[in-house]
């Protein structure tokens, strides 16, 4: 039933903040807003799909693991929930440097969304409402409420949009297309028009997911087993490491082959991607199998990971083979893979198209530049991935709350965290595809490690009000222990005794000619803090996380200092603020393209200006010269 004009019903519950969407961004946004003391309502088209994982059954991975750690360090929820619901966990890149170690956990999908829903339901100040939002209500450029499909109005003072992939969503495989959100859920077809009416520029992006196959139809003997780590590291800094040492399930590795590729090539004309039926732009980092075959014709095989969707289901996710080919081709293609000869498809692969925004319309606080009180996060902002979404949702929720508190918004800069890199990239750089976090996007990644996310961000989380005093004090204590221990080993002298030389020899390290310090020995690549325990008699008993920090900080001291100097340079450029009222039309030597981009994005600093695509170093020098005058 729609209320007719003049008889619109208004909800009288007086909410402060409305969160539209209950995916990974929406959950974090709603929790942050409610925890900061604001009456919050979270809208979703389906309460059953709260915190749903419609694609891969895992949380974390390279650089995404960093994001989860940072979310946790700031007081977000994702890390805690996955620690309770994972079924396998791995620290990736262990053989490489500490900066690129990344945690990835296979989730039990249904456990995960149930656990997250429980947290939301138990949260004070937070109401959950199943309802499609169709309109954003504004007055004089600031938001006043949302209107639902029923016509009902919910007044609020700030809004966080986290609509994910639901806006005008369309799922496609072959020539079949349905106007639904992921997993056949109801899409949200009306909000886009309201946003466009507010002057918001929209993009159409695309992504995809592979098939889910019945475990009973898979021959695992033809695949390589992939086990979890023997010792699991939790995501959350608050999780007791002993509690995550569980019995883990396995994933399986198999490969495509020439036959698979032939099937795909022979049917390319039936793919909506190549026939033009899909207009959205897809991500380069998770290409469909048909994309891979076309783009990398020299590769005679591609890896396929078979991952369980949970403990209570037989569905297995076929990682590496997302597709939008027709149903019959999917059967043929999957069944050409060793171990999948008799595969029974439970859900087929599909591509999904959806509306999202050009995030350059946002400030670094994730508030719309032109609409006060309107914030947004997640895939709606043109990103991809659960972790990217959650990170933005958290910040958007925090900043919506701070807006109402009359406080300045929180902006994490590129030297403070991956979250900072993510948001800065989104609001500054032009993007033609869903944005995925990558370690290579972080310039200062030696400093932005997953192991020190708490040291980097928990003080900020405490200041914001999402970290309690007890946790903050624990952090301060940890920092003190680290500092004292680094200081101690830097002053412990090591002689050339037999014991020392023997230990060095057993580690394949050159014996000492003369005395040195323990710290110097830790710097040797083949040695570590722990390996030197024998010759460090006065070593205090320390927690593992403290030892880890001592080891990394000493070992990579030179590199870390170098990056810190680069950060100083970076901060200098960031601190060169560009006045709000600057008139780029008056700077005549700017190239037209640069002028347009600068006018559009209105960067806060010279640093941000220099990262805008289309603004050249020459333009930046022109800008600097102009500002000096």
């Amino acid at each position, binding site marked *: 039933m729609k209320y007719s004009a003049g008889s619109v019903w208004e909800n009288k519950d007086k909410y402060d903040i409305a969160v539209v969407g209950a995916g990974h961004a929406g959950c974090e946004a709603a929790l942050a807003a409610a925890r900061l003391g604001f009456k919050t309502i979270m809208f979703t088209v389906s309460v059953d799909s709260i915190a749903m994982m419609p694609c891969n059954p895992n949380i974390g991975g390279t650089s995404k693991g960093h994001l989860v750690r940072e979310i946790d360090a700031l007081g977000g929820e994702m890390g805690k929930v996955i620690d309770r619901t994972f079924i396998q966990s791995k620290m*990736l890149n262990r053989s490489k440097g500490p900066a690129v170690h990344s945690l990835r956990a296979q989730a039990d999908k249904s456990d995960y969304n149930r656990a997250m829903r429980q947290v939301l339901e138990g949260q004070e100040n937070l109401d959950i409402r199943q309802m499609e939002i169709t309109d954003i209500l504004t007055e004089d450029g600031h938001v006043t409420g949302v209107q639902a499909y029923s016509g009902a109005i919910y007044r609020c003072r700030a809004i966080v949009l986290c609509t994910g992939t639901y806006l005008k969503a369309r799922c496609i495989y072959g020539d079949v297309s349905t106007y639904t959100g992921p997993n056949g859920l109801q899409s949200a077809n009306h909000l886009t028009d309201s946003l466009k009416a507010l002057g918001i520029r929209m993009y159409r992006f695309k992504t995809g997911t592979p098939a889910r196959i019945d475990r009973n139809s898979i021959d695992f003997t033809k695949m390589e087993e992939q086990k979890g780590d023997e010792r699991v590291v939790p995501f959350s800094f608050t999780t007791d490491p002993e509690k995550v040492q569980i019995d883990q399930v396995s994933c399986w590795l198999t490969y495509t082959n020439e036959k698979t590729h032939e099937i795909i090539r022979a049917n390319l004309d039936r793919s909506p991607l190549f026939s033009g039926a899909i207009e959205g732009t897809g991500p380069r980092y998770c290409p469909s199998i048909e994309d891979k075959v076309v783009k990398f014709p020299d590769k005679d095989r591609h890896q396929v990971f078979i991952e369980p969707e949970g403990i209570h289901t037989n569905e297995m996710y076929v990682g590496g083979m997302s597709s939008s080919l027709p149903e019959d081709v999917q059967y043929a293609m999957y069944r050409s893979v060793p171990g999948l000869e008799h595969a029974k498809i439970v859900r087929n692969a599909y591509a999904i198209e959806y509306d999202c925004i050009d995030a350059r319309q946002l400030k670094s606080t994730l508030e719309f530049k032109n609409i006060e009180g309107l914030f947004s996060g997640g895939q709606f902002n043109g990103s991809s991935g659960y972790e990217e979404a959650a990170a933005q949702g958290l910040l958007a929720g925090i900043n919506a709350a701070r807006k109402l508190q009359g406080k300045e918004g929180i902006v994490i800069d590129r030297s403070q965290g991956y979250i900072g890199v993510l948001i800065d990239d989104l609001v500054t750089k032009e993007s033609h595809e869903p944005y995925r976090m990558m370690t290579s996007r972080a310039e200062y990644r030696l400093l932005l490690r997953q192991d020190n996310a708490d040291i980097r961000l928990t003080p900020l989380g405490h200041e914001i009000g999402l970290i309690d005093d007890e946790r903050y004090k624990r952090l301060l204590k940890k920092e003190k222990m680290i500092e004292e221990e680094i200081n101690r080993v830097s002053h412990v002298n090591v002689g050339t005794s037999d014991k020392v030389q023997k230990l060095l020899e057993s580690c394949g390290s050159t014996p000492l000619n003369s005395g040195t310090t323990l710290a110097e020995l830790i710097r040797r690549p083949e040695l570590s803090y722990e390996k030197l325990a024998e010759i460090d008699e006065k070593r205090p008993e320390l927690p593992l996380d403290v030892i880890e920090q001592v080891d990394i900080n000493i070992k990579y001291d030179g590199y870390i200092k170098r990056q810190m100097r680069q950060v100083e340079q970076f901060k200098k450029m960031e601190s060169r603020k560009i006045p709000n009222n600057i008139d780029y039309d008056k700077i005549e030597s700017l190239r037209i393209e640069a002028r347009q981009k600068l006018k559009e994005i209105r960067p806060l600093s010279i640093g941000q200006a220099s990262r805008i695509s289309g603004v050249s170093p020459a333009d930046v020098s022109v800008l600097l010269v102009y500002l000096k005058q």
Partner: protein
Amino acid sequence: MKKETIAAISTGMSNSGIGIVRISGDEAFEVADRVYRGKHKLSQCGTHTIQYGYIWDNKEVIDQVLVMVMKAPHTFTGEDTIEIDCHGGTFVVRRVLEAVLKNGARPAEPGEFTKRAFLNGKMDLSQAEAVIDVITSQNDYALKSSISQLKGSLKNRINDIRKRIIYHTAYIESALDDPEHISLEGYADQLRKDALSITDEIGHLIDSADDGRIMKEGIQTVIIGKPNAGKSSLLNVLTGYDRAIVTDIEGTTRDVLEEQISLHGLNLNIIDTAGIRETDDIIERMGVDKAEQYAENADLLICVVDASRQLDENDDRILQFTFHKKSIILLNKTDLEMAVNVEEIVNKLITLWKTRENSINSGKMPEIPVIMISAKEEKGIREFEDKVKELFLHGDISFNDEVFITNARQKSDLKDAMDSMKKVLKSIDDGMPEDFYSIDLMDAYEALGRITGEAVGEDLINEIFSRFCMGK
């Protein structure tokens, strides 16, 4: 922000009689219209047309001219531009400029047109620098090198190196981001090989920086020798007229004399020094000190030995300088009866090499050419000139297609890139994990990008996606 209108004579001042006065800026047309009389007002003429008319100063016609009218943005500077082609000789060109300056333009600073072109996005940094080099270059080789830089050969060379660096970085990064798909097993060895070759190449460009400077500024050449060995006579022969005081009294040249000569298109800035010998005379002593100082900073040392006298310890001292520099030993006064020959000098050098200080690290002695000349009879001079050319224009430099770095900024960026590549090699040798390599690789990439004026932007991400098959 208004762009002031600037003007200058944009051709070098020569006696050819033709010269161009260039005016650039927002009011270029207005300024020009104040001094020009022709069929149409210049501000009303179409862009990129040539107009014929007269330049007036008050009530006086100065010259009959062709005027090129060019509207922004398709001009050298990217601004409204007028070029007045004058025919009345140097004096007249100057008067035209004066008239223009009286009517609203201000004199352009050296390189200002180029600077504006750069600021207006008309050229990248290395091109802008090359233009300034063209303007100030003093000889043919320097000019050629500037022109080839302008055409982008420097850019091409650097871009080639950058491409290799970004490939490796992208490979490492894609493996870090997708460790389950892309392996780095055994990659360090492969990278090591390529990093060495990249380092070599950058080193080569840095070396060319010195060649570039030498071409632009000339070879700092210092003549040393005992008093009365014939240094000043040599200088006089080379320059073609008496500049240094030449007498038979030892120690006549108490200070240093500097002269520029052009040799096969190379500029030699020749410094004649006081003779080097042990002396108690305070003034002469100062001259000797200075001579030694110059010798330290020279690009080329010409060591003159008097063939008519036996070698003594003063010669020893002088000959030792030749070990550290590009040097040529001239055995002068071969017109007189010879008391010393080439072989003796070579033997002397070998003895000196073996007994020199720090001889623990003795390597191979550098090959130092010894040429017999007679400054008085002007014999052996041609041989000497050829040898200079050979030393500085050695086989591996050919002036047509080689790139020369001629500018201090570029050189320092190259050095930064080189340092970063060395750090990559060190990280490999120290057995550091692979993610550390890419940090320094990116630094090198960035430093090289500064030379061509290119920002890093999304280069790495794009390379990763276009080269390597990633992800789920």
